[in-house]
C-alpha cells in the first residue's frame, strides 16, 4: 500500500513538472513553424515569405523573435514592401534552431523546399546550412561571427549583425579618444565566448598601441566578484573592461571592482546598459562607465524616427518597453533595405545590391556593408554600424560622440584591422 502511495506521489509530481515545463516560455519544445499572419488580406497585396531562424530558448534569440513579431506586422500595416507597382506583406516563417546544427539544418531544409523561402534571417548555426541556401540561391543574412560565412566562395550569404566589426572599431575609437590610456585589464566569463573575446583583444591591442595587462576569467554564474576585483586591483590598470557575462555579471563586476578601490576608467565595450543594470542595483557603481549606447536608449531628441517607430510597435504589441536585447533583429532591416534598393525579389539582384556596398538604416542605427580583404573577399559581405558612445552621469545618459559608419570604416582602414583595403 505504501508503495502504491509513493507511486501516486511520484506520478503527481511528474505530472506537475511536465505541466510547468510545457508552460515554460523560455524553452519552446517544438520546431514547428509559427507565422505572423499578414494583418490585411486584400487580394491585390502579395505575400513575401521571409524565414527567421534563431534560438528561442536563448534570451537574445527570444528577444529577437519578440521584437520582429512586433515590428514586421507594423511594417505590413504601414504598407509593406513596395517593388515596382506591387506591394508585398511580409510573412515571417519562424523556426527554432535550438542552437543545434542538425535542428537548424532540418529547419532550413523545410524553409527552402517546403515553405519555398528565398530570404532567410539566420543565426549562429549558419555553418551547418549555408551550403544548402547557396545551392538553392537563397539569400541569407546572418548573425554569426563564423569566418566561414565570409568566404569568397559564397554568393548569397552575408553577415548582417555587428558581431565582427563593432569590437575593433569601438576600441579604435577609444584609442584615439583617450591616447593617454594604455593599460587595460579585461574581465570575461570563463567560457568559450569569453575566451574568444579575450583572444580578440589580445590580437587587436598591439595594433592600437594598447597593453592588455591581465585577463581575469570568472565562472559564468559568479555573483561574488570580490577575489576577482582584488586581482584587478593588483594590476591597477588605467582601464578596466568587462564584457560578455550578461547584465548581472557585467554590473556586479564593475560594482565589486569599484568597491575594491578602483578609481580608473571603466570601458564597457559591448555597451552601457542603464535599463538592465538598474534592475540589478543602483546605478552609482557604474556611473562614469563609457561604452557604446543602444539607439533605443537615446534621448528623444536624438532618437531616429525608425527607432521610435520600432519602440512604439513593440509597446503596442506587448504593453511596455522592457528593454529587449534585440541585437540580432538588425538583420531584418538590412534585408528590408536590400529588397527596396534592388526593387526585385530575384535573389541574384538582391545579393548583387548587398555585395556592392549597400547602405542601410536600422532601429539600432544606420550601417553599411563592407568587404573583408583579410578573408580575400572583395564583395561587401560584412556589416558595419554607426555607433554612439555615451557615459552615465548620476545615472543619466550623456552622449559623448556619434561615429558614422563611414567614419568607423575610416578607422578600420587606418588601423588595418581587416587587412589593407585598396584605394
Amino acid at each position, binding site marked *: 500500500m505504501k508503495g502504491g502511495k509513493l507511486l501516486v506521489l511520484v506520478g503527481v509530481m*511528474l505530472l506537475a513538472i511536465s505541466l510547468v515545463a510545457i508552460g515554460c516560455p523560455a524553452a519552446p519544445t517544438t520546431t514547428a513553424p509559427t507565422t505572423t499572419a499578414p494583418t490585411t488580406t486584400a487580394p491585390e497585396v502579395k505575400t513575401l515569405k521571409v524565414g527567421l531562424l534563431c534560438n528561442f530558448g536563448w534570451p537574445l534569440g527570444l528577444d529577437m523573435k519578440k521584437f520582429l513579431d512586433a515590428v514586421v506586422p507594423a511594417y505590413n500595416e504601414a504598407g509593406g514592401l513596395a517593388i515596382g507597382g506591387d506591394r508585398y506583406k511580409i510573412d515571417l516563417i519562424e523556426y527554432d534552431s535550438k542552437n543545434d546544427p542538425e535542428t537548424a539544418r532540418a529547419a532550413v531544409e523545410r524553409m527552402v523546399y517546403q515553405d519555398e523561402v528565398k530570404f532567410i534571417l539566420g543565426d549562429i548555426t549558419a555553418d551547418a546550412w549555408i551550403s544548402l541556401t547557396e545551392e538553392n540561391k537563397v539569400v541569407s543574412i546572418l548573425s554569426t561571427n563564423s569566418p566561414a560565412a565570409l568566404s569568397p566562395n559564397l554568393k548569397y550569404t552575408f553577415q548582417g549583425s555587428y558581431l565582427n566589426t563593432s569590437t575593433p572599431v569601438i576600441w579604435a575609437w577609444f584609442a584615439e579618444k583617450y591616447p593617454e590610456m594604455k593599460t587595460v585589464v579585461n574581465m570575461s566569463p570563463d567560457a568559450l565566448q569569453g575566451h574568444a573575446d579575450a583572444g580578440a583583444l589580445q590580437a587587436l591591442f598591439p595594433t592600437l598601441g594598447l597593453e592588455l595587462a591581465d585577463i581575469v576569467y570568472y565562472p559564468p554564474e559568479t555573483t561574488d566578484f*570580490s577575489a576577482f576585483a582584488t586581482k584587478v586591483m593588483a594590476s591597477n590598470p588605467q582601464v578596466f573592461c568587462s564584457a560578455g557575462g*550578461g547584465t548581472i555579471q557585467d554590473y556586479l563586476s564593475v560594482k565589486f571592482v569599484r*568597491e575594491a578601490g578602483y578609481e580608473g576608467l571603466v570601458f564597457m565595450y559591448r555597451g552601457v546598459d542603464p535599463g538592465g543594470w538598474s534592475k540589478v542595483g543602483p546605478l552609482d557603481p557604474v556611473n562614469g562607465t563609457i561604452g557604446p549606447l543602444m539607439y533605443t536608449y537615446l534621448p528623444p531628441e536624438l532618437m531616429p524616427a525608425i527607432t521610435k517607430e520600432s519602440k512604439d510597435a513593440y509597446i503596442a504589441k506587448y504593453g511596455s518597453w522592457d528593454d529587449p536585447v534585440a541585437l540580432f533583429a538588425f538583420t531584418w532591416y538590412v534585408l528590408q533595405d536590400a529588397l527596396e534598393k534592388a526593387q526585385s525579389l530575384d535573389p541574384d539582384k538582391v545579393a548583387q545590391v548587398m555585395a556592392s556596398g549597400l547602405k542601410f538604416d536600422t532601429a539600432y542605427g544606420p550601417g553599411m556593408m563592407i568587404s573583408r580583404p583579410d578573408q580575400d573577399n572583395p564583395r561587401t559581405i560584412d556589416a558595419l554600424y554607426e555607433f554612439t558612445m555615451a557615459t552615465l552621469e548620476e545615472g543619466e545618459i550623456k552622449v559623448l560622440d556619434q561615429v558614422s559608419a563611414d567614419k568607423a570604416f575610416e578607422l578600420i582602414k587606418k588601423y588595418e584591422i581587416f587587412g589593407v583595403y585598396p584605394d
Partner: protein
Amino acid sequence: MASILVQLVVDGLAMGLVYVLLASGFNLIIGISGILFLAYGQFYMLGAYILWGLMVLFKVPFFVSLCVATAVPAILGGIIYKLIFQRIQSMKRQFLNGIVAALGLLTLIGQAALLGFGTSSRGVGSIFTGMLEAGGIRISVERLVLITLALAVLLGLHLLLQRTSIGRGMRAVSFNPDIAALQGVNPGRTFLVSMVVGCALAGFAGGIMAPVFAVSPGMGSIVLLILLVVMLGGVGSMIGAIIAGLILGLTLSFGQYFIGTGLAQILFFAVIGFIVFFRPGGLLGQPMEELPI
C-alpha cells in the same frame, strides 16, 4: 603583497560565511531527519526573491522583509515535510524515495520561479552604503552587515542546539531516533523542527545575499557546493560545516586570485578528496557504515 593576502582572507571569510550558513541548515536537515534535501537551494532562491519582491515592489523596510524572507521558506519547508517527507519516512527505501521527492521539488520550484519571475536579472539596491578601509584592506558596509547578521544567526543556532530542550531533542534524535523516543522525545516533531529551521536558514541566507549580489532563478544550484561543504565538514557536524564553509571560501578566494577560476574549483575538489581519503566521514563527522537506503 601582505595587504593583498589579508584582503583575500577577508574576501574568503565573507564568502565562506554564506556557505557556512547554508551548510548549517542543510546539515541540520540531513543530520537529524536523514533527508538529503536537494531542493534546499531553491529555498535560498525563494528567500532572495521574497526580499526583492517586498523591498522593490512593495517598499517594505529591509529588516521586515528579511523576517518574511526567513519565515515563508520556513513555513513552506514545514508544509512540505508534513505533506511529503513525513510520509516517505514511514516507507521502505526512504532515503532513495526522499531523493526522488527532493529532485521533483527542485525542478518544480525552479520552473515555477522561471515562470513567475522570468529570466531577467533582479536586484535590490544597497541597503547599507559606504566602505570601510584600514591598512589597505577594504570592505563594504553592506558586506560587513551580511557577516554580522550571519554570525548572529549562527550563534543563535548554536544556542538553540546546545541550550534549549528542542536542541537537546534534536541532538538526541540525530544520534538515535528510537532511543530518543524512549526518553520522551517526539522524533516526528523534531524532524519537522529541523526542516523548518533548516529552510529558515536558507531563506535568511537568500535574504541577506540579495542586496549584495543579485537575484536569479539559477541561485538554487548552490546546493551542489553546499553538499560538498557538508561532505567535507562531516554530516551532522555543525562545527565541521563552519570549518568546511570557511575552507571553501578561502580556497576559492585564493585560488581565483593565484591560479584562476577553473583550477580553483579543481583545487577545492582536490582538498575534499584529500581529506575524505584520510577521514571518510569528513573533518568532524563519523564515517557512515551503511547507506540508509
